[in-house]
């Protein structure tokens, strides 16, 4: 088959496939599946950077949380106390009592309280301590210096390591590594640069993200006819599809554009992918919505909610109005039902109404720090950590492999990506101030696969800037302020156990749990 060499169906193969379809042949699916899967042989994948020894048949999962706007690491796990800094009054340091330590851990936790969030009259009362205590053994913070303070560019670079591996994003790399058997290996609910595809065009199309913007209603689109009032039976739909394919095959249009890449892709999606998606009953399994007429009249349209719906709605009660909660719930289901190996979510820059005080998401997410740095960081970190905590709880409760006793969490990496840090200066001893964008920052990773309870690098209390580390040994390198985007990228994939042969990525063994 030409697919083995070109990745595309030849004209003859496509005609054969469509003819078989028109005749209702049961062999059509396997034929086209065979074509596609021939692209995914170990040999073919090895050419794309993957080696055979990674094909153990067991997926690993990546959850990317795009903390849009600049989640500052010195406003969370590397916060600096005033008493520690020679320049405390002019830099972003906290009153000592607001920075809490945990015995036996390098992480810190900020406690913050204010009656307003910038010009928004809502109280902000947050405390990161419980999160750190609960998850510190599976937390790793790696300090970083980026290369852009432009939101969209920096967002994308946080996913590509600034084109560290042919421009492919982490999600695409994970989809390539573990997603071959998944119908939608890479689902992206992120925003801006977090939702962009990478630039490695050698990857199979399935590796690129499937964009989802409305997580609660999107599953309704995963079946061609169910849930449509008055729709004919599946038998009739199958006949309609068969007739359509026959018409397409013979029409002047179909023959004129038979070599069109768009049409070839369309036929593969329609004839191979579509039955696969429908066969998994995802319109039910991924549907978080309850039957709640008149707003959500599922039963009236012959639909059911997911068997996991009740517990997800309990974990994410604002799933319908708060985008992050809805995304997190869908992310869990996408992984649980083996639809995806990589999911991306995160707040966007729009206001979301809801939550305890009426605002679920402030304008500009973390970037509200321009207006109120400390309150904005505290509010947004609490928002992100809350979603992470719920996701971890769910994943821990979900068995992955009964024979090994592994849970889903045992095979999952959560990467809290962000664009950049924030500028450190503040007016003398001000507690409410604005900040700009700064290349200097750090990233939070959570997984049983990372070297837990670890800070790679450190922070200089006199500047509150983070300094670097040796990605191979993990040794801190005080004074190192050079960009390390490829180290972060490599570290995530290394910790997950991805085969990086031929990638040219730096050795980042320090990220991996021994």
């Amino acid at each position: 088959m030409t697919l083995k060499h070109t990745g595309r169906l030849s004209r003859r193969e496509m005609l054969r496939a469509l003819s078989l379809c028109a005749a209702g042949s049961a062999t059509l699916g396997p034929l086209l599946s065979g074509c596609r899967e021939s692209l995914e042989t170990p040999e073919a994948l090895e050419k794309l950077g993957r080696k055979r020894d990674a094909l153990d048949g067991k997926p690993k999962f990546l959850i990317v949380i795009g903390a849009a706007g600049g989640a500052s690491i010195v406003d969370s796990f590397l916060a600096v106390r005033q008493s520690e800094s020679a320049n405390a009054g002019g830099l972003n340091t906290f009153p000592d009592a607001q920075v809490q330590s945990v015995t036996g851990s390098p992480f810190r936790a900020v406690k913050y309280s204010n009656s307003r969030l910038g010009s928004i009259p809502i109280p902000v009362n947050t405390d990161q301590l419980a999160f750190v205590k609960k998850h510190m053994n599976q937390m790793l913070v790696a300090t970083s210096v980026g290369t852009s303070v432009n939101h969209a560019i920096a967002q994308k670079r946080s996913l590509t390591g600034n084109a560290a591996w042919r421009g492919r994003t982490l999600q695409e790399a994970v989809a390539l590594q573990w997603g071959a058997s998944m119908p939608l290996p890479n689902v992206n609910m992120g925003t801006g640069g977090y939702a962009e595809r990478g630039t490695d065009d050698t990857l199979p199309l399935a590796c690129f993200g499937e964009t989802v913007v409305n997580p609660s209603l999107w599953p309704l689109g995963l079946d061609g006819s169910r849930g449509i009032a008055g729709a004919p039976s599946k038998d009739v739909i199958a006949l309609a599809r068969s007739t359509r394919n026959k018409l397409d095959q013979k029409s002047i249009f179909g023959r004129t554009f038979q070599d069109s890449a768009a049409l070839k892709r369309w036929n593969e999606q329609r004839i191979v992918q579509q039955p696969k998606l429908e066969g998994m009953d995802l319109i039910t399994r991924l549907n978080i919505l309850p039957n709640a007429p008149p707003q959500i009249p599922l039963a009236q349209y012959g639909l059911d909610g997911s068997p996991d719906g009740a517990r997800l709605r309990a974990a994410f009660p604002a799933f319908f109005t708060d985008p992050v909660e809805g995304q997190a719930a869908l992310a869990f289901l996408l992984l649980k039902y083996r639809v995806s190996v990589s999911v991306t979510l995160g707040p966007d820059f729009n206001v979301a109404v809801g939550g305890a005080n009426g605002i679920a998401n402030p304008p500009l997410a973390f970037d509200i720090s321009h207006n109120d740095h400390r309150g904005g960081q505290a509010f947004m970190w609490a928002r992100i950590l809350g979603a992470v905590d719920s996701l971890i709880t769910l994943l821990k409760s979900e068995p992955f492999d009964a024979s090994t006793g592994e849970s889903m969490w045992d095979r999952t990496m959560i990467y809290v990506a962000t664009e950049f840090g924030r500028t450190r200066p503040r007016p003398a001893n001000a507690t409410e101030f604005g900040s700009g964008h700064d290349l200097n920052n750090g990233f939070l990773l959570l997984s049983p696969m990372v070297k837990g309870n670890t800070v790679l690098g450190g922070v200089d209390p006199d500047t509150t800037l983070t300094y670097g580390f040796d990605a191979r040994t993990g040794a801190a390198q005080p004074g190192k302020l050079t960009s390390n985007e490829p180290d972060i990228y490599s570290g995530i994939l290394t910790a997950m156990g991805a085969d990086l042969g031929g990638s040219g990525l730096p050795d980042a063994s320090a990220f991996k749990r021994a």
Partner: protein
Amino acid sequence: MRPERLLLTCLLLTVTGCSDKPPVAIDLGPGAGPGVTPTYDGGVAKSQKGNLRFKGPERLSLDLAQALELPASAVCNELGKYPCLDVHGVALGGVDPYQHSVYETAPVTGAATPLAVERTVLSACNARVALDVNAPSSAVVFKDVALTGGKLKDAASPAVATAMTSLVRRAWLRDPTQEERDTLVQLARDVEATGTPNPGVAWMQAACLAVFSSAEAVFY
């Protein structure tokens, strides 16, 4: 014409496989008679670039509204409430700049795109079929198509042929070939053979879905 230009023109005609017979004129008017395009055996010149564009959500939805004479708001609503343009807009290759910061259209169709197309088309078809069946005097597509006990009374009737021509003209802006029309009529017999209730209506829905979700109807 200078001889070298004449030679070049002849060469081009030969290379592109053009016949010396003029192409058959096609009546594009939806109100014209129940004609079909005679078989044209002059061959097809394959497009070398094949630069097809997917219609995208707005064009797809508005084309359906216009072709099936439906209000735009009646084309497709999930759960009867949520416009498919909003729910499936990005899956259909659209943007969502204000709510979700999706500023650029996808460069290729996604895995869920064909499903979103079918849902949108099927919803619109159901709406049209329901109107035509419930109010035959003001039927638009399936005019005078008689049903008996839920079945198509006569698949070979002129009314059925006219309905199929109308459907194709509305979707593809051309007449069907005889073979295409026969294929759609045969669909009626196939649907009836499944034993589905109300096979006549089911055939109308199926024929409409087949035509309006075809590649010719969703790419340009």
